[in-house]
């Protein structure tokens, strides 16, 4: 029993990171009913950008946030304005296919520029770990991931509850026509929602880079994690997304401990498929 404590705790901590990965997708899906299939690639792009800035300036990986976030934000804004806004009225398939095309382009660009080698953002945080009560070890980086997750979700919660932007996003998610009738411009609010989503992708990308090794093709598995978080936790619910992250994190690490590390992703996928089958709207979802 005690041997499962470590993957359990670490899974929960990892879940905090997963929640950040998923919240961006959840936001866009809630308001536009679209899934940006390039979400994972945007994350990994942030990881690579962080690497670039690390090599340009000798700074701590955590400082790269300052550079990476604006770059990715601008990229996301451009993508929304020039790619996605053009197919707003054309239905779900166009958006899906364009975001798919975009993900392929980004993936292969990164492959070309950065080669297929494994990379990681070296930091002492990843090596150090906390020894808790002599029962288990908690890598410090996971604590950082979890804390960042809490901060990001807390910030988002504040925005959603107390600012015009947040109310506008929630209103447009709820009833787009009524939202237009109170003066909300759909294109503007889509772009802003996309901007927030992309910022969370950037943050989680840098954290992922510090926590794991990454490759140009890593985007796929994180997209699936993001989707998993949204599905399990339920759409449109911040606490739900957090819960989804925790469940996915635990099932992955615990499952990995039980059926073997090579099959770690598999246990997460299985949980996801089960939830998709039984309750596609998610555990706490409304849609």
């Amino acid at each position, binding site marked *: 029993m005690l041997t499962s404590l470590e993957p359990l705790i670490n899974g929960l901590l990892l879940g905090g990171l997963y929640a950040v990965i998923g919240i961006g997708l959840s936001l866009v899906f809630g308001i536009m009913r679209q899934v940006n299939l390039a979400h994972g690639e945007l994350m990994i792009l942030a990881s690579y950008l962080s690497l670039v800035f690390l090599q340009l300036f000798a700074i701590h990986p955590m400082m790269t946030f300052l550079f990476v976030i604006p770059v990715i934000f601008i990229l996301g804004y451009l993508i929304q304005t020039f790619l996605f806004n053009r197919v707003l009225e054309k239905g779900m398939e166009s958006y899906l296919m364009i975001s798919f095309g975009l993900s392929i382009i980004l993936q292969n660009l990164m492959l070309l520029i950065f080669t297929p080698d494994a990379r990681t953002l070296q930091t002492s945080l990843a090596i150090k770990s906390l020894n808790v009560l002599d029962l288990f070890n908690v890598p410090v980086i996971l604590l950082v991931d979890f804390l960042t997750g809490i901060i990001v979700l807390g910030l988002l919660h504040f925005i959603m509850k107390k600012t015009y932007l947040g*109310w506008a996003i*929630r209103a447009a998610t*709820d009833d787009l*026509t*009524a939202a*237009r*009738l109170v*003066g*909300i411009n759909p294109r503007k609010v889509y772009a802003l929602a996309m901007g927030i989503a992309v910022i969370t992708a950037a943050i989680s990308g840098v954290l992922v880079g510090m926590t794991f090794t990454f490759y140009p093709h890593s985007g796929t598995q994180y997209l699936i994690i993001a989707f998993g978080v949204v599905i399990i936790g339920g759409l449109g619910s911040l606490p739900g997304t957090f819960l989804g992250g925790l469940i996915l994190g635990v099932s992955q690490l615990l499952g990995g401990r039980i059926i073997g590390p090579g099959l770690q992703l598999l246990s997460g996928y299985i949980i996801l498929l089960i939830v998709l089958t039984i309750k596609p709207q998610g555990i706490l979802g409304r849609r």
Partner: protein
Amino acid sequence: MVILEVKNLNVYYGGFKALWDITLSVERDQIVSILGSNGAGKSTLLKTISGLLKPGSGSILFHGERIDHLGPHDIVKLGLTLVPEGRKIFSNLTVLENLMIGSYTPTARKSREGQLENVFELFPRLQERKNQLGSTLSGGEQQMLAIGRALMSQPKLIIFDEISLGLGPIMVKHLYQTVNRIKQKGMGVVLVEQDVKRSLKTADFAYILQEGKISLKGRPKDFTEEEVKKAYFGL
């Protein structure tokens, strides 16, 4: 003073011509009623005025400026607000948040505290329930919320689409009293209703639509019952 003018409006909807050569006007401090049976075109007319639909031809002027090419969010900024049919309040926002988002436009935001007080004065029930989710309100309360939300946008003209639908007589009476108070505050009001009697009693001017055309217009007190029936049903 005329604030809204619709001139020779022709609108197509779902492949059919829904409105034929519609001309009407609304002045400030005036309640204008638009009546008609189901399918007469009332809803299409309101959607076009508020910007959700674009007309095939004709023009809509608000304070002398053309608005028929604008989207709803720009029209609200100019001071024309629609209270849509079926209320369409935001069920996942609280009462207070619904009202807050009503003051989304830049001009409305500045005076939101004052407007909020006005709304709570008109509808004390909303103040009681201000932290409750929209979905938990009763039909009548939702209608009050929809009106309150529209008021928050500081409109100069407010359009009510079927506010009495599905509500009991006491609530309807209260709502119409509110409509009168709104007119007295200096706004123009357009009332679209199926309840012919009550809306003709309240209105200063009325238009009756039949199959997309205006079949009767004038001051309601000048109408005979025969005229109204014929204009409404076409018998």
